[in-house]
C-alpha cells in the first residue's frame, strides 16, 4: 500500500520505473497535467484513477472525486477543463443502484465544473478482484496565452497561499471508513477548483505555481515544489488554517495535519507584489473564502520545507515515507 500513499515510495516508483520507460520531454516536468502545443493551441492533458474507500462519504462520493480530481489537475496548469473521458472498472456483484448513484454524482459534478464527459468505457472484473468501483478519468483543456504555471517557477521571495482549511477531506474519509466520530462531523471539501483558478488568473496572469495538495497533504506538495524549484519553503505554524476538529483528530491519532489529504483546496505560489491582489480575489470566491498566506519561498535550505513554530524554532517538514512511525525513544 505504501507505494500508492503519495509519499516517498510512490515518488521512487515513478522515478525509477515509469519515467525511464516513457522518457520524453513532455513527461519530464512530472506535473499533475501535461502542457503541450497541438496545432496552434496550448493544451493541458491529465489522467487520474480513483480507488477510494468508502465510495460514499460526508460531502461527496467517488463520482465527485473522479470529476473534480481531473478538473483540478488541469486547473493546476491554469487550464479550463473542457472534455473528460471516464472509465469504470466494476467488481462483479456490485449493486447496480450503487453504480447508478455514482454515475449520477459524476454527471452532477461535471455540470457543476462546466466540463463535458465526451467518451467512456466500462470493464467488469471477477468478484474479489476489485473494491466495488474503480474509476479512471482523463481530461483536456485550453491553457490561456501567457500563462506558465509549473513547480519549477517558485523563486525566493514568492508567497505561499492556501485556498482554505486543510486536512478536512482526509479526516472525513477516515471517520467514515473506521466508524469513528471526532466530535462534530467532518465533511469532505471535494470541489472543482477551475472557477477559483480563473478568478485568480484574472488578477494575476503570472501565478508561478498551483498545486492541489491531495494525497500526502500540504507537506508532500510543498516538498515536491521545493525540490523542483531548488528553493526553501518556510511556513508559519500559527498561520496554518487547521479547523479545530481536524486538529483534535490529528492530535489524537498522532498525525500531522500537514500530511492529511485534501480535496477542493489549492496551494498557490505567487510573486510577492501580487500576493495581496491574489488573496483578495481568492477570498471573493466561495471556494477561497478562508484563503490565507501560510509562508514564503526562501534562499536558505533549498529543497527543504520547514515550519516556524510560535516559539521561533524551525521544524523540518519532510516527505512522509509510507505510514508515520514514531521516532521518539
Amino acid at each position: 500500500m505504501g507505494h500508492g500513499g503519495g509519499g516517498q515510495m510512490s515518488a521512487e516508483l515513478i522515478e525509477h520505473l515509469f519515467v525511464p520507460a516513457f522518457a520524453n520531454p513532455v513527461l519530464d516536468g512530472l506535473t499533475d497535467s501535461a502542457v503541450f502545443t497541438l496545432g496552434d493551441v496550448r493544451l493541458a492533458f491529465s489522467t487520474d484513477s480513483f480507488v477510494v474507500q468508502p465510495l460514499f462519504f460526508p460531502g461527496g462520493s467517488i463520482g465527485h472525486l473522479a470529476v473534480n480530481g481531473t478538473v483540478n489537475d488541469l486547473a493546476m496548469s491554469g487550464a479550463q477543463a473542457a472534455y473528460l473521458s471516464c472509465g469504470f472498472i466494476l467488481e462483479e456483484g456490485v449493486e447496480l443502484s450503487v453504480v447508478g448513484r455514482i454515475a449520477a454524482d459524476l454527471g452532477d459534478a461535471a455540470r457543476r465544473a462546466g466540463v463535458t464527459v465526451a467518451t467512456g468505457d466500462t470493464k467488469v472484473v471477477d468478484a474479489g478482484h476489485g473494491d466495488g468501483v474503480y474509476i479512471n478519468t482523463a481530461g483536456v483543456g485550453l491553457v490561456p496565452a501567457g500563462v506558465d504555471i509549473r513547480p519549477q517557477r517558485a523563486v525566493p521571495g514568492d508567497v505561499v497561499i492556501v485556498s482554505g482549511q486543510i486536512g478536512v477531506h482526509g479526516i472525513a474519509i477516515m471517520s467514515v471508513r473506521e466508524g469513528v466520530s471526532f466530535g462534530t462531523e467532518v465533511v469532505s471539501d471535494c470541489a472543482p477548483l477551475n472557477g477559483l483558478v480563473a478568478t485568480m488568473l484574472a488578477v494575476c496572469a503570472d501565478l508561478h505555481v498551483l498545486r492541489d495538495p491531495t494525497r500526502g497533504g500540504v507537506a508532500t506538495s510543498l516538498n515536491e515544489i521545493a525540490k523542483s524549484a531548488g528553493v526553501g519553503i518556510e511556513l508559519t505554524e500559527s498561520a496554518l488554517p487547521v479547523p479545530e476538529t481536524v486538529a483534535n483528530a490529528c492530535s489524537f491519532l498522532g498525525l500531522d495535519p500537514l500530511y492529511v489529504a485534501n480535496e477542493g483546496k489549492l496551494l498557490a505560489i505567487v510573486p510577492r507584489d501580487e500576493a495581496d491582489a491574489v488573496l483578495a480575489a481568492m477570498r471573493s470566491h466561495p471556494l477561497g473564502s478562508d484563503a490565507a498566506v501560510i509562508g514564503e519561498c526562501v534562499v536558505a535550505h533549498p529543497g527543504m520545507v520547514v515550519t516556524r513554530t510560535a516559539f521561533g524554532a524551525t521544524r523540518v517538514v519532510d516527505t512522509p515515507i509510507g505510514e508515520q512511525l514514531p521516532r521518539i525513544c
Partner: protein
Amino acid sequence: MLVTGVVQGVGFRPFVYSLARELGLSGQVGNTASGVVAEVEGPEAAVTDFAGRIRTAAPPLAVVSTVAVESLPVLGGTEFTILDSTAGAGRTLVSPDVATCADCWSEFTDPSDRRYRHPFISCTNCGPRFTIITGLPYDRPATTMSEFPLCPDCAREYADPADRRFHAQPIACPACGPRLQLVQPGLEPAHDEDALAVAHALLVDGAILAVKGIGGFHLVCDAADQAVVTTLRKRKDRGDKPFAVMAADLGTARRIAEVDADEEELLTGIRHPIVLLRRRPGAAVAEAVAPGNPDLGVMLPYTPLHQFLFDQPGPGVLVMTSGNLSGEPIVTADDEAMTRLAGLADAWLGHDRPIHVPCDDSVVRIVDSTELPVRRSRGYAPFPVDLPVPVRPALAVGGDLKNTFCLGEGRLAWLSAHVGDMDDLATLQAFERAEQHLERLTGVRPELLVTDKHPAYRSRQWAERHADGRPVIGVQHHHAHLASLMAEHRYDGEIIGFAFDGTGYGDDGAVWGGEVLLTGYDGFERYAHLKYVPLPGGDAGVHNPCRMALSHLRAAGLRWDPRLPSVQACRGPELDLLEAQLAHDIACAPTSSMGRLFDAVSSLAGVCHRAGYEAQAAIELEGLASSDRGLGGYEFEVDADQIDPGPVLAAVVRDVLAGVAPSVVSARFHRGLAELMVTLAERVRAAEGLTTVGLSGGVFVNKVLLSATTRALTGAGFAVLRHRRVPPTDAGIALGQLAVGSRIR
C-alpha cells in the same frame, strides 16, 4: 621514549622537562606527529624512575595511551632542552574543555596576583580547548584566541618551559585578554566589574540572564524564586522537563541534595559535569525547577565567570539551562544570542572570546559507585574511545533524538558532543558544522557512512544525501545499542544483550524496544522480546501514558475498570475514541517497547498519565520506588520468544484496586523485571553457554533497575556489562553503529 595519547596541548613537555630536571637527567623532549618523544640519560635508577613517573605523574589533562622505550647510545650531555614542534601528518588527540584548576583559582582569589579576578584565567591544566580550536596543529593561531595578541608578561610565561602557562593556548590576562560585557535592551553596555555588578543586581531582582559559558550560552536565574523559574519555563516552552542548577560551592550543593563521596569527586573533578543527585526534602529550590522529580541536576562553577555570579550576597543556587529555544541547539555566537534568545533573556552577560563549536554540559549519574553517563559532552568529548576491533575510516550518524555522531578509524572512535533532536532545522545545520569540525580535528576521512535502519530518521536521510558514492550501511537500532556497550568495554565476543528502550525501528517494521538479543558485532539473534501491543497514534501514544496503559490492559484481556487511575484519566470522549482506535487499528503500530510498558505501569499506579518530556512517566515511577527489598516481584510469563507482561499487568491492577501504595507497585515491578532478566539469562546460558550479560538502551538510565539487575545477575554468576563511558540512550548508538557497520573483518 615515545609517549602517545592526549599528550599535546596539555603541558606534557614542561612536565617532562621538570621531571627530568628533578631527577638530574639530561636530554631533550619534543612533539612529533605521532606523540611526545623524550630522550634522557643519567643514572639507571633515575631513568627507571623517570619512565615510571611519565605514566603515573602525567599532567591532569594528559591521557597516556602507550609508552614505547628504546635504548640509545650515551651522548654525555648535561642540559635538558625542549624542542619546537615538528609538523607532519599524524594524529594529535584534542583535549576536552576542562574546569578551572586549583592553581588558577588560588591566583584568581589572590589580590596580589596579576590575574586577580580575571574572568579568563586558565593554564595548561585547565580552560577551554575543544570549543576554541579551529584547526590543527593546536597552536594559538588555530584557536579563537588568535585575535588577542599576548602582552609581554603573558608572552614570557608562554615561552617559559618552567611556567604553568608554557604553550597554554588560551593564556590571557587583564592587559591582553578578552573583556566582559553586559547588554540590556535600551541601555549602554557595561564592561568588566561594572558588567558583573549589573548582572548580579539583575539576578537578585529576579531577572533571567543569558550568560556565555565554555560551550555556549546558559539561561540563568535564581533557582529559589518560583516566579522567575516559572517564567523561564514558559519562555522556553519547556513543559515539565527538569532544569539543571549550579550551586555556589560544594557546601551549598550538600544543602539542596545528598552528595556521596563518588558524587563529590565528580562535582569537583576536572570535568565538572551536571550530576543527578537525590534532592533533599525542603531544599531551598523552587518546585518549578524540577516538578515531580525526586532528583536534581547539580553542577558547580567551572569558569571564573560562573564564580562571579556567586561572589556577592545573593542567590546561592542558580538555574543554568542551555540557552536555546526548545528543540534548537545551544546558542554560541554573540549576535545569535541577541536575536535567538531575544524572547528568553532580560540581559546578556558575554565576552569577546568566540566559541568555535557548541558543547553542552555533560550529565552523569552515579550508580553503585560507578559513573553512568546520561549526556556525554563538555569535559568528555572529543576524547576518543579505544575500540576492541579495527574499523575502516567511517562516519556513523547516530539516531534522531539526543543525536551524537561518531567518527572512527583503526582502533579509535570519536563520539561527538551532544547535537540534539534532528527535528529542527538549526539542529541539522549544527550537526553538519560539528561533523566537519570533528573531521578536521581527527583527520578521519570517512569511506563509508553508517546509519539507523529507520527509514524516516533524518540522520539517515542526511547520510543518503551526503553519501557522494560512498556506501551507506544500516544497523538495527538495538544491535547498535548493544554494540556500543561492547565497544566501550573493549569486549569482542558474544553477549546476552538486554536492549530496553522506548522506540527503535525493528527488522520486521514494528517498533522494537523490549529486546533480548544474542549479540556480536557481526549480527544478532532475536532470542526473545516483549509481546507486541498496539501503540495507539504513534507519538500521541508516547505522550499519553494513560492510553498506553489501556492498550496494555486490552492486549492482556483485562477490563478497563472505571476505578483504575488510567481509566479515570482518559474519561469521556478520549476513552471512546481510544476504544475505537484500538478496535479498528487506526494509526496503531505494533510495539515491543519496554519504555511503553513502564509508561503503562506508571499510569496504572496513578503516578503519571501525560508525559511532558521524554520518559517522564518512567522517571517518576522510578523516583518513588520503595527501597524495601523484601517485596516480591511481579512475574512475567515467557512463552518461547514472547515475554508476556499480561500477568504483571493483572497483578498491578489487583494491587492498585486493593489500595497498595504506588511506591510498592513500583518496587515490585522493578524487581519483577530484574528477576525476568535473570530467568532469561539462565535459559540462554544453559542452551548456548554464554555468561556475559549486557544492559543497554534508555531504560537503563533507571538507577533502581540497573542496580537491582546487576545485583541479581552477578549473584547468579553472570559477568555484567553496563554503560560507564557512553550513554545507554540513543546518545550512544553512533558508537555501536560504527563498530558494527565499519568493522574490518
